[in-house]
């Protein structure tokens, strides 16, 4: 067989595989959207869910998902930023840092249901936090930390060493160089990583079933005092998220319109994750252009 023919065959096979992946994805997303979109309405997005009668919405679940996401990022971003900076800029190559890196690898490959059960035993039971948003946010932090840390470390590593030398040679301290030159340059990559991890966290269910709980208590959206038990901001209330809600409807939902609610909620979830992904691309590109282009600031 001549090499030209081999080349053609190889390219055809690779193309076919790529097209197959796209088709599967398009089929999945298309099906979920087709089934779910007709059920989405303002009423569906804002009204509380109903356990026994038709016509319930996903308002509290949607709010819980977003609130939990925000809390998770607030907890995990500073930690992973610190860890990422340490690992890429300061960590010497020795046994201890090798162990740290390995621990991060292992943590990132933990099944999320294990993270959930661990969170249940430690935070819900041992620390008596109960089924609460706080327990859920901490469990999600465990889930999110390794990926975010790796992402930040890689973003910082990808900044050219010439920039470090330039900063140091100009009489900047190491910290100033990292803080004022390396981090701004790594920013587009870091932002992309955060938004992508947000998408992952948003769709997570298994880690939350045993930590944030499976019930959406009646919250009063006009009560914004975080210490009141009916306030949506209360950290100690149980909070069923969108992904958990979908899981629950499908395993034990008894409302007459369970299929419709599940389809609608799934569509909302998929759209949210798609928006996160598009946002990651857009924000990353925008920041990168802003840092490097000829445009004036």
């Amino acid at each position: 067989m001549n090499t030209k023919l081999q080349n053609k065959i190889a390219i055809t096979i690779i193309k076919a595989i790529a097209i197959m992946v796209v088709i599967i994805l398009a089929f999945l997303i298309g099906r979920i959207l087709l089934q779910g979109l007709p059920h989405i309405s303002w009423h569906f997005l804002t009204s509380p869910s109903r356990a026994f009668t038709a016509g319930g919405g996903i308002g509290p679940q949607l709010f819980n998902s977003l609130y939990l996401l925000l809390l998770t990022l607030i907890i995990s971003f500073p930690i992973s930023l610190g860890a990422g900076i340490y690992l890429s800029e300061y960590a010497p190559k020795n046994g201890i840092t090798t162990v740290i890196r390995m621990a991060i690898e292992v943590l990132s490959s933990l099944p999320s249901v294990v993270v959930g059960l661990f969170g249940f035993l430690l935070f819900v039971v041992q620390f008596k936090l109960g089924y609460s948003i706080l327990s859920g946010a901490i469990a999600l932090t465990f889930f999110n930390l390794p990926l975010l840390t790796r992402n930040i470390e890689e973003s910082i590593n990808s900044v050219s060493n010439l920039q470090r030398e330039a900063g140091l040679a100009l009489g900047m301290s190491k910290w100033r160089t990292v803080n004022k030159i390396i981090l701004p340059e790594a920013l587009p990559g870091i932002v992309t990583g955060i938004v992508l991890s947000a998408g992952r966290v948003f769709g997570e269910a298994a880690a939350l079933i045993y930590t944030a709980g499976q019930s959406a208590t009646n919250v009063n959206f006009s009560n914004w005092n975080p210490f009141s038990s009916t306030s949506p901001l209360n950290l100690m209330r149980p909070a069923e998220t969108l992904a958990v809600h979908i899981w629950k409807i499908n395993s034990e939902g008894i409302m007459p319109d369970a299929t419709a609610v599940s389809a609608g909620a799934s569509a909302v979830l998929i759209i949210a994750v798609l928006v996160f992904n598009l946002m990651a691309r857009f924000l990353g590109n925008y920041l990168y252009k802003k840092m490097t282009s000829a445009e004036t600031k």
Partner: protein
Amino acid sequence: MNEFITTRDVHLYYGSKEALRGVNLDFPDKGVHALIGPSGCGKSTYLRCLNRMNDLIENVKITGSFKINGEDIYGPKTDTVELRKKVGMVFQQPNPFPFSIYENVTYGLKLSGIKDKQLLDERVEMSLKQAAVWDEVKDDLNKSALALSGGQQQRVCIARVLAVRPQVILLDEPTSALDPVSSNLIEDMLLTLKEQYTIIIVTHNMQQASRISDTTSFFLNGELIETNETKHIFLNPEKQETNDYLSGRFG
């Protein structure tokens, strides 16, 4: 001769590899001083000892004495941050920060606490003029430095070093990645700067060394073979190796 920089018995090891084998080299105040030699001869390594950039590499061991203006730069009290403000450095690859031209030049100043807008403006103009790039960029100082050509970037990088007013400027093959026009501009600039600064330049370009430098030092295999006035080195070198290198027999 009143020596401004003196280095004695400099040894440098990368792990177990000896990259500098006992270099004794002095530089007078002001003027342009060239370090030449084939690749891997230790000239860049030596240069990077003078602002302690080699400290950043792991497993490097440096012995010997380094004094700039009488001060031991490897002494226990030396602050490398302060040292590098006095001993600026320009690299082979232009490495502007991903900010505007104005911010690039004022970065060092702002970090040392100068906030006066008028003073900053003056410094920017003066440094960019000294670096022979003012006329090309004066109308768009807010443009990202990354949008400039390589030659312009390198001159902005030189302006950035000049803005903090160092005493010594180290240049590590500053023109080897540039076009001939930019190289010429930088050479002319160095000739005017040498009245005010002590300039040490590593170069692979022998013509460049002969055109702009006052003294030339020839390195080979981690040793300093010969150092003298540039004219002297190029016209009648005392060592056979120098003669061989200059006549293109190796390197």
